[in-house]
């Protein structure tokens, strides 16, 4: 296969050799990708100005943007337990590190929660509770990594995924999320429930991943 490598790289060099000069690597101003504060319930301080309004509470903005994506921002274990009960979702997975925190609010026999995700029965969980590694306020995005969410399936296979997040983990925008990207073989940004519009452009949620995406704020 090294033959193919040399040939391809040789052709690349030959293709570029006639160029008198190469386009330089542009240095770009972060202002370019600052989002105007035009949408959502958190207006910019001065309308028309770029960027987030100063001193915007990142959780408030995040929650607003997540709701716009049909995701659910929630605060506290009690609210979660109540919501799960209302929907009749009692079979679930919870990350072992989180379980001590949720044990009291999701008691047997109402709930059956496992702290080991059984790959053989991947389809038997109605909800999965895992730890988020961060969040992006401007896009309502949760950041998951293999380090903090070891079970990829636990955050993907159940109909409802609950990502647990702390206030200080939220960054304002995409640029800051890229700048603070964790060193991890797999980092995934999740913006709302899994969805498609393949059939006649009609929006349907819950295709291969969760149909409900919750961000649960804990102190």
């Amino acid at each position: 296969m090294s033959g193919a490598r040399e040939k391809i790289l040789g052709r690349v060099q030959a293709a570029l050799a006639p160029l008198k000069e190469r386009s330089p690597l542009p240095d770009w101003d972060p202002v370019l990708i600052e989002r105007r504060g035009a949408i959502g319930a958190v207006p910019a301080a001065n309308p028309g100005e770029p960027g987030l309004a100063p001193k915007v509470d990142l959780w408030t903005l995040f929650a607003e943007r997540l709701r716009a994506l049909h995701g659910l921002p929630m605060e506290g274990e009690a609210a979660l337990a109540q919501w799960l009960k209302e929907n009749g979702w009692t079979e679930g997975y919870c990350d072992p590190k989180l379980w001590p925190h949720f044990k009291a609010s999701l008691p047997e026999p109402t709930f059956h929660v496992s702290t080991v995700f059984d790959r053989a029965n991947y389809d038997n969980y109605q909800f999965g509770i895992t730890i988020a590694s961060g969040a992006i306020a401007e896009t309502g995005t949760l950041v998951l990594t293999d380090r903090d969410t070891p079970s990829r399936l636990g955050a993907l296979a159940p109909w409802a995924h609950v990502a647990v997040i702390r206030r200080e983990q939220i960054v304002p925008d995409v640029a800051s999320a890229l700048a603070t990207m964790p060193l991890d073989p797999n980092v995934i940004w999740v913006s709302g429930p899994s969805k498609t519009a393949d059939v006649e452009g009609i929006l349907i949620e819950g295709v291969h991943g969760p149909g409900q995406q919750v961000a649960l704020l804990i102190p």
Partner: protein
Amino acid sequence: MKKQPIDTFAENLTAEKHAAVRGGTKATHEKRSVMLPEHFQNPQRLREMAGEIKQHAIENLDTYLPQVEAKLQSNGVQVHWAETADEACATVHRIMQARQATKLVKAKTMVSEEIGLAEYLEERGIESLETDLGEFIVQIDGDHPSHIVRPIIHKSRREIAVSFEREGLGAYNDDPATITQRARRWLRPKYMEAQVGLTGANFVSAESGRIVLVTNEGNSRFSLAGPRCHIALIGIEKIVPRDRDLGVLLNLLARSATAQPLTVYTEFISGPKLADRPDGPEEMHVVFVDNGRTEVLASECREILRCIRCGACLNVCPVYRQASGHAYRSVYPGPVGAVLSPLLAGKRFPELADLPKASSLCGACNEVCPVNIPIPDLLLRLRNRGKEEHAELASVATPGLAGWAWLASQPTAWKTALVAGKAMNVVPSALLPVPALRAWEKDRTLPEWRGGEFRKWWRKNERKTEL
């Protein structure tokens, strides 16, 4: 007179398909056009910047490719190179054989369409299953995607319901939610049975070796949660210099494609999973695919390699809206396809030499392009190439200019023609002596002939200035 193949295709399109394509593209384009200026102060500058970043990357592939290869290898990824479609398919096959793998789940990748991977593997007894809902439907129908981002934009829910019934996914039901739920149930076990998950890549960072994958459905995530081996097929032009440049490109990609700030899942993969993690691939391969790209790089159309496959140019193009994707007879339809497909065809360029003519050169494609590709300029360069290479299709339905050139160089004949042209106002179009004019008149009305008016005006005004 012979028509351009794309015109013939458009004429034979059913009203239903035409409405679906037109409606779907128009709606997405309008949402995108509202969102970009609403979200950004200077979307024009942002597009230009994205173009500059990508142009720099492709003009420095000789540096970046070895750099990204080394980075990937140090991240624990096995790197392969494939010159041709066949070589790329064979590489995937070899990796699978080495693992004695017989089942593969595939997230949406245009490169795999381009190299005909599914057919190649099926012929060799390997199950290769599409998991993107649209691609899955295309696969069970033995069809081809007709849009880069929305593969089944040409299909109605009724057609899908019939296909699902035929394939045993359930009795006829054309409710989109039911269709989606059935596909979900059908595909879930497949992810868990497959030994290999195959994806493409939207971007690869030369700085970190991170591969970026964007999807909405979660199928690529599932393909990297069930199977133990990940193969990423990547065109050599997908490189981005630095991680921070993804800030520009990701902010534009989903907005341009589907009018979303970000797709639901944006995944950054830098290698196989850690040993103590339960889910994910323990082995990861990257196959860098050339398949004609180095030829494009050597051509005067190399700007097309900036393309990030968002489909915005398809959505805005009057020709695409009228003709639909299959009219382009290639994997990449629309304005980007009219440039890229004939170029990637290599020696078979003459077979697609009509595609650069499938444009009114209105420039809308350039205006929406997130990486600011001057598509109309590239189309002109390819029209020129078609003529220079005497490709027959480059001249179909193009009136010869020789007659006009002769007239324009003979003042007396020209003046006579200007007056004689008035006859066109009264002669029925079926009797017009020039075939190209007859063809034109079939669908359109020629404006009234007013030959000679300017000369009259000029004579009058020239006299005035002299006075």
